[in-house]
């Protein structure tokens, strides 16, 4: 789902890529784009008396050989002409809010239209509660757009309250429980309103993991609350015990699930415990004396690390890596063999 990264950077990450390539497209005539069929609900400004005083500024597409030209609809071209005109004139008004809303509905990744709208809201002292009411369905329509979340941050920050945000986030996560923007926004919310130690937040995170024990975003959010909220440390022995038990419980539910294993290893490191403290637990899922009863490649991986650190147990470590390479995780055979190679490097050279 989440292509995420990148628009490549900026666009790349979160675009509507599954577009029908189809229609193509008559040859770029260098003069005019092909006419798109008129949309019955299209909104035009030229006949609207409320806009009669504005002279639109048409797009200069840049000469005879423009690159990546798009067959814009008339509706979009016209609206953009009015947007450039109001920006040029620095107009901030109620009708500008409507215009920016219209453009966002067609091109939510227009980076300055959002900034312009934010400034307009400030200038005309608009009702920010209403802005959020508009943003909710807009975000649901454009699940992968990140400008929307940036804008939402600006508005909620100005409102000064997180009320209602948890419900909205829940609605968003129903659409895509791993949406990166939504989880990032939740983290911003926790930070902005100091919710790290609010019990609800941890309980909610647990319910997300309960729904899907493989939701790595939820696991990461737990780490953010428990460790990130306490300057990178697990704050007490009680918390250490609780976190280790929690991860172990989840692993017993689904041993072949990298998320809680990574969490467990991270927690042990953050607590300053040796990885050997997890040996007995790992053996529950991967006892090399009984290779037919191995239930988790992640347990073998961890055992390989533990054996490698033990005095004189390198052969056991190699055996674990060989099992991974040849039987339990062969898609990563090159990696396991590389790890095996590292064991052969003389200690002094390491």
């Amino acid at each position, binding site marked *: 789902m989440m292509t995420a990264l*990148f628009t490549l950077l900026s*666009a790349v990450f979160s675009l509507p*890529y599954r577009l029908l390539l189809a*229609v193509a497209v008559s040859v770029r005539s260098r003069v005019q784009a092909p006419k798109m069929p008129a949309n019955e609900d299209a909104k035009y400004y030229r006949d609207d008396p409320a806009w009669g005083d504005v002279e639109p500024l048409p797009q200069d597409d840049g000469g005879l050989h423009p690159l990546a030209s798009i067959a814009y609809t008339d509706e979009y071209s016209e609206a953009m002409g009015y947007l450039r005109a109001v920006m040029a004139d620095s107009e901030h008004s109620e009708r500008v809010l409507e215009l920016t809303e219209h453009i966002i509905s067609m091109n939510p990744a227009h*980076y300055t239209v959002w900034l312009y709208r934010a400034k307009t809201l400030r200038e005309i002292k608009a009702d920010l509660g209403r802005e959020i009411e508009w943003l909710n369905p807009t975000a649901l329509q454009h699940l992968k757009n990140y400008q929307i979340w940036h804008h939402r941050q600006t508005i909620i920050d100005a409102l000064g309250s997180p009320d209602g945000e948890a419900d909205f986030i829940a609605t968003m996560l129903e659409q895509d429980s791993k949406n990166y923007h939504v989880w990032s926004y939740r983290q911003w919310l926790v930070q902005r309103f100091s919710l790290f130690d609010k019990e609800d937040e941890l309980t909610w995170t647990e319910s997300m993991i309960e729904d899907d024990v493989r939701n790595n975003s939820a696991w990461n959010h737990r780490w953010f609350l428990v460790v990130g909220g306490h300057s990178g440390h697990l704050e007490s022995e009680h918390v250490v015990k609780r976190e280790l038990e929690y991860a172990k419980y989840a692993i017993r539910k689904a041993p072949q699930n990298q998320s809680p294993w990574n969490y467990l290893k991270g927690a042990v490191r953050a607590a300053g415990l040796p990885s050997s403290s997890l040996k007995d637990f790992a053996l529950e899922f991967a006892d090399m004396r009984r290779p037919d009863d191995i239930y988790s490649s992640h347990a073998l991986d961890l055992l390989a690390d533990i054996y490698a650190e033990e005095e004189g147990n390198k052969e056991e470590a190699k055996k674990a890596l060989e099992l991974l390479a040849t039987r339990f995780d062969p*898609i990563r055979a090159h990696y396991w063999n590389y790890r095996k190679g590292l064991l052969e490097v003389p200690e002094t050279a390491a």
Partner: protein
Amino acid sequence: MAPGLTREAEERRLNYAAHIRYWRRNLKTFLPHQYTGNDCNRMTLAAFIISALDILGDLPAALSQEEREGYIDWVYRCQLPGGGFRPAPATDLGPLRNPENQIWDPFHVAGTFFALLILVNLGDDLEKVKRREILQWLTKLQRSDGGFGETVGENDRVEGGNDSRFGFMAAAVRWMLRGNLEGPVDGVPDIDVDAFVRCVQVAETYDGGLSEAPYHEAHGGFTSCAISALYFLDRLPRKQTDGRPRGLRNMPMTLHWLASRQTLTLDEEDAADTYSDETDSAATCHDSHSFMKLHNFPSSRGKLSFQNQPPVHAELKWVGMNGRENKIGDTCYAYWVCAPLKLLEHLHIIDPKPIRRWLLDRTQHLVGGFGKLPGDHPDPQHSFLGLMVLSMFGEAGLQNVDTALCITEKAKKHLESLPWRRKLLGLDDKGEA
């Protein structure tokens, strides 16, 4: 025919003719109106189009001299009066632009990065690029925590997210315009490289990946961008320390995380039953695949394995790459994961063969290009990054590419040969080749 050969022959090849048709169509015809959401990313799409044709070796044939000059002219028409490039004509206020309203047509790091790539690809000498001004903008685009934003807005406020995509593009632009030099050059101040490195380090995650910001989830795209940025800044980890801060803080963990992005979950319907786990579904499953299917091997297979014979199993024919833990394979992550491995000089920890087959057999499209998932229509981003990966793997018939810049080595050499750049870097004193 020997069985081995038959099998080879059955494999899908890179369909050069179709890819060339796909990219020429993108170059010379209008993109359909569904691309309106990309209106402000046209420079990015344009860079993919030009660079893809160059990787396919088709650029000279695809362009007349007049077209080449026309495209160069188009890019320069996107150059801002104060330096830098807008990412599309959409924000151009033309004759109405003035000091008060120019913040709505601001310096834009992606516009600038991709414009420079296109100019280099088309053989321009960048003499008309306002290079000093761009370098000055980069320093304004850096936030106090060391990270970079996307644009500079009202009152010099840095706008846009604060993740490694922007740092990557800023570092690449800096490298193109002033190489590896640190500190002021020619009276133009430098960005704070140390602060940026620290910003990357605090975005390292507990599982070894890199994220958007401290304590956010590890993500292939952010990992790749951060590592490419460190590469451009000459701050990747080194055996010998030189007193300068270097990322990453835990290389073995990062390599583990990158290697873990290989997956057998390639289709939405690739659900699998897993050991006492009721939550596994098409949307959630992942690494259960590699494990559960192979776990059922007969024991005799296990014995064989101990002789270092990798098992030949149909499941291993195609291996995809994902961007986060427990996510489905996606064409673009083949690049976002392989690129950092290559820059860290560890591409050998993955096997390129099944990844190549996945791209060619599963996400390559009949009309050319690559889709995100099997069966998806091609789009410029996935189509371009798919080609990048195949070239990085040494696909016959493709031009060699520079992993981090995303252009051909030939185009990069052209950049490096430009007289103003050689002079700036003091290369002419050391004798010309």
